[in-house]
């Protein structure tokens, strides 16, 4: 449609999708593993049970999606926070590299780790 097809809409799409994922999944996950289990409010699942859940292909796929998109969400938002909050838009290039590069690296790591789940 456009002569140059800017990448910005795609990044925003990832950012938005990640925003939704984080908002839907993270409150429960973080509440359980970050607070409820450590404080003993609830008993953590035993190992076999958890392994069974995590190793299910569907879980892995969902987790990969959630992790990757959420990282892109972070990358996009953090990039603008740096621009606006610290007024360092002139460092544009390096910020982009750090943010989106980080998200890509994170995605690869996640894929590797989820691949390795027995």
């Amino acid at each position, binding site marked *: *449609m*456009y002569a140059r*097809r*800017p990448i*910005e*809409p*795609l990044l*925003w*799409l990832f950012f*938005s999708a990640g925003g939704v994922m984080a908002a839907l999944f993270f409150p429960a996950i973080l509440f359980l593993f970050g607070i409820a289990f450590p404080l003993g409010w609830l008993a953590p699942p035993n190992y076999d049970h958890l392994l069974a859940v995590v190793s299910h292909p569907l879980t892995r796929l969902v987790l990969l999606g959630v992790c990757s998109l959420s990282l892109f969400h972070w990358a996009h*938002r953090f990039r*603008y926070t740096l*621009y*606006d909050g610290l*007024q360092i*838009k002139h460092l544009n290039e390096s910020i982009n590299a750090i943010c989106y590069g980080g998200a890509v690296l994170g995605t690869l790591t996640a894929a590797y780790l989820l691949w390795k789940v027995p």
Partner: protein
Amino acid sequence: MSDHITLHVARYRPEKASETTFDAFELPCPKEWVVLDGLNHIKDRMDGTLSYRWSCRMGICGSCGMLVNGEPKLACATFLSDYAPGPVRVEPLRNFPVIRDLVVEMGDFMSKLTRIKPWIVRQVEKPLSDGEYRQTPGELDEYKQFSMCINCMLCYSACPIYGLDPHFIGPAAIALAQRYNLDSRDEGAAERMQILSEHDGIWGCTFVGECTKVCPKHVDPAGAIQRYKLQSAVEWVKAFVLPRAAQ
């Protein structure tokens, strides 16, 4: 409630000073008075050198935007008595260069407005003899809200992103672009998208949302911009999936 109120009015006189100072005026404060009545009282009775813009006195011409206690407001639609016992601080709109006292420079917006092509774009004009373009009340509703903008610049003054980057096209201009895009008579959406997907366009906005909060006409520029982003993303995907069909 006291019947007097003190106004601290920002003054900037380019010939005399390079910084803004404040003058204090003690004014009567009848319950009908808006901030603009206070300023007119100062101008007519106390200090004729105060400069500010106003015209309609009914919240529709968009001239009298200023900061009242730090908030972007229309001076003609903001009651003094709401700030009793005062004092009230009146300053020029934030994020704009100040020409004098409460008068800011808004030529920047005027050129941005032209850039987004705020007129009906059509491949083929329908001749007048064929009558009106039919448009149902529902279709009218689609863009009506975005056509309510009075160009008062309160949203620009509230938007920190515009403050940081004056090149950002900004809330009202993008809302007006949406106003035409969503009009069933218009065919210019693609042209406008071209302009707005540049760097200073919709992607500059980080959805601070203050623009919508201060808008006296409920235009919701923040919504207009986010909808634009969504639309742009959808089109990106479409063009990616069906490179030919999107042409």
